[in-house]
């Protein structure tokens, strides 16, 4: 009996002494980490955490467990008690040396990357409160310039990478690659990483369409075993940011008007005549049109996602709802996005990915004229009747309406509708087959469909051109696209050598159907095309585009010290004449990881990384729209109901690709694991620039597509990231980036011009693209008050003249900046993080076109004027030194000249945000992994001398726009946003 008890007791005693130690391993975000090695120190006993991050290992009291996981700092833990669980939080290794960089067709580790590449991960992209990727990138990546074209809800920004390498109109945005396939759509909340490829070494493999850089987006996938939910709610209030553009008040405009009555002989204002026409009461009548038409607006965004993984199957599902009310009356935008990413691993060799992204949006837009009339309406006119109803005004209305335009824009807005709807879906099917250990095959396929419909309706009860008739116009656009990319991938090591590569082909095609109807003669209260009874017009066409490619790339490295990448690609497109439509694009990149050399490791301790990179490659650009090489007559007209063909395009059967040769040198350094510094120097030469060369108008054509000239973009980019402070509780990072790009044209036989709205730009050798050529404004004649421009005589002498027709057009500025950049900083303490970004730009000029109307020297006495800069003055009498001519002597003073060309440099504080991650104890109490609250201010402040709405001006050349010319636009917004992020 005693023996049994002893045995039992002995056994019982043994259990605690040598027992299973259990626990869960988490990463710093609270996600479980499978695959972590848990080793008993000093032994080879070890286990691996399972899919739930759980481990269970035999250990005794006093043993030390070592937790090891690639990319994370190893931790050691001494077992003090065998009766409790040991949960561990592992921290990521700051070096991130082996962080995987998604390059598109292949992935590389950061060590292996030989090119100019910038990577942003989902944390850095968290401040997106819109569906626009541009706003997420602003100021964060050297060499990337983002311009917000308009504050209208649903409008996106324009992105330029490394300057402007082409001068033809057309799509100038970088190429987007979503989940390894060119094209596609995505919601910013679903982005895991975003990579920007800048040089040919990286973009070369994209060949023809990578001329303007490539942005690669990878969407999220399921990672850990347990289903992980993420909920985000974002609510913001935005107000219109009018910049330096303020319209005059009633009394200010009254004073302005009195200038019209300055007597040319006595130089005094003839008050008797003035009051006769302008009653004194007007000075106290003030309706703030702009202030009232733009109201604070609410934006909201909600996102719910779920992700999970099991042995064979992983998924990520996410839905987002975005509602953006516009600050201007009757404008707004709503969007719903749904994504489902799934991956099924059949067996060790074959996996299949099915990704679907579907989105639907609708919005109400505005008519440009309604906004135009709102800005120009005089403060003496009140749009409301005494009873609060909106006034109806037209040319016949009795009673006084001072504004030149006899129309009340509020009335038109209330009785018109400009809405649009879109729907799109992208379906990706990716098959990965591991054929042998070193050879695999992948077939990535995408089917895309999108449809857009817009509807413009003006009721017959409105004043203006549609009075009594109404107006309806509907347009529908359907786009189908398909892409199939089939590659073999190679990957093997022998000894210190490592080779990888890919080869394959890609087929890409798209078809666009476009149709529109228009009509008038609508009965009141009806707004569909069927009810139109007069002036009915139709139009529509369909286009097809093809693009096929053969792609190959080889990567080689020796001992992780010497790296080489080479790619070769052949593209064929339907955009060029059939006998000239194929081109080849090679590229090569090499790098040397100096810090992996033994001599370096032994002698240099302060630098933890030093990499030297060089690349060269050729990329191209086929995006000029179909059939630009043909001589064409357009059949879209009619004459008395007979078909009519009008000369439309002058032929050029020699038209061919633009090709850019890109050279890049770079240096990446890291000091003390704290300071990360990169320098890139590049020289990109684009040859055979496709330009619309102006023809003499007496040809009957304004221009013709030609390959004429070259443009060189050279520059330097600097990127610095400093971890200034890093302790257990406090961390402070600062990042600064700077890029300087100089753009020079060459190889142009005869300088040519382009102009929009009378503003001209010249294209000639040794000048930058978008150089303005305008008569030069010299100011105001002190003796006569007349405007002065500069005339250059035949002998080269210069003199001022008040005759506009004698003013000589000269080069007076350029639309491209000398340098751009940004900075960001973040400070975190315990759970609080303060984050701020800013962006700056210097050296560009903007033609402030809205001043032609709003700063008009009395040419238009009945439209409102902008409040002048404090150092502006108007000439009154001989001897005055003034900036603005006398209203009595201002012939042609608003004609195109450098008068309205202003400096567009600015510094903008983009975002300031304060976020607080609730301590784990509290969030666990709410049954959440993480709860993060954020308060953010966007578009906080801008410093600029530009006297207009916004120094951010379009970079696109198009129908209504020219780079560097600014006209009315929907104002940008300032926003305050409150955000909750829950993980559970």
């Amino acid at each position, binding site marked *: 009996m005693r023996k049994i008890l002893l045995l039992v007791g002995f056994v019982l005693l043994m259990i605690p002494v040598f027992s299973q130690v259990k626990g869960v391993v988490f990463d710093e975000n609270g996600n479980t980490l499978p695959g972590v090695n848990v080793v008993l120190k000093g032994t080879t006993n070890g286990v691996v955490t399972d899919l739930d991050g759980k481990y269970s290992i035999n250990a005794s009291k006093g043993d030390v467990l070592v937790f090891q996981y690639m990319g994370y700092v190893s931790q050691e833990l001494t077992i003090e008690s065998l009766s409790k669980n040991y949960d561990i939080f592992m921290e990521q290794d700051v070096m991130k040396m082996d962080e995987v960089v998604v390059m598109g067709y292949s992935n590389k580790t950061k060590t292996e990357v030989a090119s100019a590449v910038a990577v942003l991960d989902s944390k850095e992209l968290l401040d997106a409160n819109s569906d626009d990727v541009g706003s997420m990138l602003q100021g964060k990546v050297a060499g990337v310039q983002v311009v917000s074209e308009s504050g209208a809800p649903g409008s996106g920004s324009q992105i330029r990478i490394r300057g402007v390498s082409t001068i033809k109109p057309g799509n100038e945005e970088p190429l987007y690659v979503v989940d390894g396939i060119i094209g596609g759509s995505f919601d910013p909340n679903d982005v895991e990483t975003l990579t920007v490829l800048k040089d040919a070494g990286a973009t070369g493999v994209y060949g023809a369409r990578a001329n303007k850089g490539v942005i690669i987006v990878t969407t999220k996938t399921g990672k850990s075993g347990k289903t992980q939910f993420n909920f985000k709610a974002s609510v913001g209030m935005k107000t219109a940011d009018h910049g330096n553009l303020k319209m005059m008040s009633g009394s200010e405009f009254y004073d302005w008007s009195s200038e019209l009555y300055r007597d040319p002989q006595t130089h005094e204002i003839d008050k008797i005549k003035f009051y006769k026409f302008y009653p004194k009461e007007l000075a106290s009548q003030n309706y703030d049109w702009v202030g009232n038409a733009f109201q604070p607006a609410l934006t909201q965004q909600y996102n719910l996602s779920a992700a999970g993984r099991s042995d064979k199957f992983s998924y990520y599902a996410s839905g987002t709802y975005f509602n953006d009310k516009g600050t201007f009356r009757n404008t707004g935008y709503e969007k719903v996005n749904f994504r489902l990413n799934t991956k099924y691993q059949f067996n060790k060799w074959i996996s299949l990915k099915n990704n679907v992204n579907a989105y639907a949006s609708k919005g109400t837009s505005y008519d440009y004229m309604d906004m135009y009339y709102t800005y120009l309406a005089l403060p003496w006119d009140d749009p409301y009747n005494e009873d609060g109803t909106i006034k109806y005004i037209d040319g016949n209305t009795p009673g006084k309406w001072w504004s030149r335009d006899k129309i009340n824009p509020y009335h038109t807005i209330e009785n018109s509708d400009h809405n649009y709807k879109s729907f799109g879906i992208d379906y990706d099917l990716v098959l990965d087959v591991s054929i042998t250990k070193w050879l695999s095959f992948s077939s990535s396929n995408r089917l895309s469909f999108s449809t857009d419909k817009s509807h413009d309706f003006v009721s017959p009860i409105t004043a203006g051109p549609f009075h009594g008739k109404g107006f309806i116009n509907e347009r529908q656009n359907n786009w189908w696209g398909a892409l199939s990319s089939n590659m073999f991938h190679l990957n093997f090591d022998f000894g210190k050598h490592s080779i990888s590569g890919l080869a394959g082909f890609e087929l890409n095609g798209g078809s666009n159907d476009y149709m529109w109807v228009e009509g008038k003669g609508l009965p009141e209260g009806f707004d569909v095309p069927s009810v139109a009874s007069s002036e009915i017009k139709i139009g529509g066409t369909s286009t097809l585009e093809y693009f096929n490619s053969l792609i190959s790339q080889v990567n080689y490295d020796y001992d992780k010290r010497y790296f080489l990448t080479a790619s070769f690609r052949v593209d064929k497109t*339907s955009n060029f004449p059939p006998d000239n439509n194929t081109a080849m694009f090679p590229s090569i990149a090499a790098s040397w990881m100096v810090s992996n050399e033994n001599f370096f490791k032994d002698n240099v301790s302060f630098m933890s990384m030093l990499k030297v990179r060089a690349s060269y490659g050729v990329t191209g650009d086929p995006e000029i729209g179909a059939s630009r090489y043909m001589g064409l007559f357009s*059949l879209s007209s009619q004459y008395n109901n007979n078909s009519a063909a009008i000369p439309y395009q002058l032929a050029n059967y020699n038209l061919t690709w633009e090709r850019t040769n890109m050279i890049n040198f770079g240096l990446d350094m890291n000091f003390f694991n704290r300071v990360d510094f990169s320098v890139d120097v590049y020289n990109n030469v684009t040859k055979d620039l496709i330009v619309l060369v102006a023809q003499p108008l007496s040809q009957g054509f304004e221009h013709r597509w030609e390959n004429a000239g070259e443009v060189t973009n050279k520059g330097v980019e600097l990127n610095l990231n400093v971890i200034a402070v890093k302790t257990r509780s406090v961390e402070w990072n600062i990042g600064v980036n700077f890029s300087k790009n100089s753009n020079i044209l060459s190889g142009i036989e005869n300088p040519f011009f382009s102009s929009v709205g009378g503003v001209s730009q010249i294209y000639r050798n040794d000048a930058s693209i978008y150089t303005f050529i305008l008569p030069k404004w010299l100011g105001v004649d002190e003796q006569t008050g007349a405007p002065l421009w500069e005339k250059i005589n035949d002998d080269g002498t210069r003199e001022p003249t008040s005759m506009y027709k004698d003013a000589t057009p000269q080069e007076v500025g350029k639309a491209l900046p000398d340098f751009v950049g940004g900075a960001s900083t973040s400070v975190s303490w315990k759970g609080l993080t303060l984050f701020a970004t800013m962006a700056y730009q210097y050296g560009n000029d903007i033609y402030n076109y809205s001043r032609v109307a709003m700063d008009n020297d009395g040419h238009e006495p009945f439209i409102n004027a902008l409040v002048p800069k404090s150092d502006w003055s108007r000439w009154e009498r001989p001897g005055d030194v003034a900036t603005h001519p006398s209203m009595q002597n201002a012939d042609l003073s608003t004609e195109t000249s450098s008068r309205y060309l202003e400096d567009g440099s600015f510094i903008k504080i983009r975002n300031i945000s304060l976020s607080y991650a609730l301590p784990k104890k509290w969030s666990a109490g709410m049954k959440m992994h993480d709860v993060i609250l954020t308060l953010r201010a966007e578009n906080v402040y801008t410093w600029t001398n530009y006297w207009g709405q916004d120094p951010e001006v379009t970079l696109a050349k198009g129908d209504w726009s020219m780079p560097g010319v600014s006209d009315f636009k929907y104002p940008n917004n300032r926003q305050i946003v409150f955000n909750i992020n829950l993980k559970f």
Partner: protein
Amino acid sequence: MKVKYTIQVLFVLFAVGILSSCSKWDVSPRDQISTESLSETKDGIVNVTNGVYALFKDQVEFNGFIDDNNSYLRQYFQMSDFASDDIVCGQVTTDPLYYSFTYTHSPDQANSRFFWYVSYKMINGTNTVIDIIENSGKIERDNMVNQILGENYFLRAFSEFSLLKFYAKLPTAGNPDSDPGIILRTTANEPAKKARATVTESYNQVIADATMAASLMNQSRGKEFASKEAAWALLSRAYLYLEDNNKAIAYADSVINSGRFTLESASSFPSYFPNALASDETIFLIAYTQQDNRGKFGSIASMIYSDGNSGWGEEFASESIRADMDDHLEDIRWKYIDTLHKDDGSIMTKNGIQVFYITKFSFQDGDPNLSSPVMFRLSEMYLNRAEGYAKNGDETKALADVNEIRKNRGLEGSLYNSVPAGETLLDVVLKERRLELAFEGHRTFDLIRNHKNIVRKYWGYHIKGIQSPDIDPDNPPTGYPELVINWNDPIINYFIPADEILANDLCVQNP
């Protein structure tokens, strides 16, 4: 092994896939026709010819966008009549039409640059068709094809003649053998840079083209297209401008004696312009349909007429022309001047100027902005002939033609028996011409070629810098430079567009 075999098969399949993906690499736009395929069918050349007519009325894209203010005929009428003494400017505006009133032209002004551009686009269209018919050898020359060929020669002549009016000195107002004319383009493929021909050479081209046109056209397609008689009418007008009186008379004779046309009577004249296509007085017009209704922002009517909403209604019939018509209120031509009255019966004023709207470009189908502008009509032939006779000293025949017009305009009680005291025969003819062809793009040139100054001694915003309190309704203005424009002042001509001078250094600018 099996794996390797599978790979090989897959690879072959995909290779085949590339080759057999016989994508159509030649993708032509589906709403446009290429220059090559035009000569394949007769349709092609007819469509291009129709396109030239369409260019008179279309709002063609220019400088990257479609400006509602830009259409050929709008500029054709405004650039001439706004510079005349028939229309007064009712208010200052930044629209370049203002510069026509004030004679402050600029090489940059959009309306003139557009007019020049479209004129040459028309010429390009005609040259393309002429080239195909005469040189390609693919089109058989039957009556219909000759008609088309003739129409193109006519259109080219008309476009050249119009350009000459605005951009060159009229032959009788300068030295035509040395004054720069226009750039003559007679083929579709010539060097882009070309110099201006002289005025004499340019008019010779006009005459040659119109004469060729007349000989080819025997199968008129309708009044909205050119015809033999339209070519004769153009020749009559051109010779009148050249002061070759006998030829002006001869061609006017041909038109009048063709028997195809009759003058509208006093009772039908008020509805003539809204129904011009159906009228026997019309020789050639440009047909607008409802689809071409440019509304407030682009119609010719909009600046000179409004019903309160339909147009801008900023320019009115001047005191000067009304003074010439005031003696005869029974003149049926008053029907095209619409006085705007206030509720109390007095005449409405805008900015101090009395409102007299002009309705010659309105009311087709009852729409205030729609009309089919008439380019040539029978009454001009009588007036051309009368002027020719007057300059030849033939008083009887000149007065007979003037009376023929008056008989049909409600003035049968006031026919001329002789030249009234204080006036010359030419004065009588020119006055009738003014009243009959008012607002139709003639007046400014009629004055200049006859060495008469443009006299505008009435209040209006052609006087730079005035404000409405300056206007004294009891006393006419004095002392302002814009009141009298001398017939030989170089500021009358428009500048060659800046774009042309920049891109074509062989082309000289006007002073």
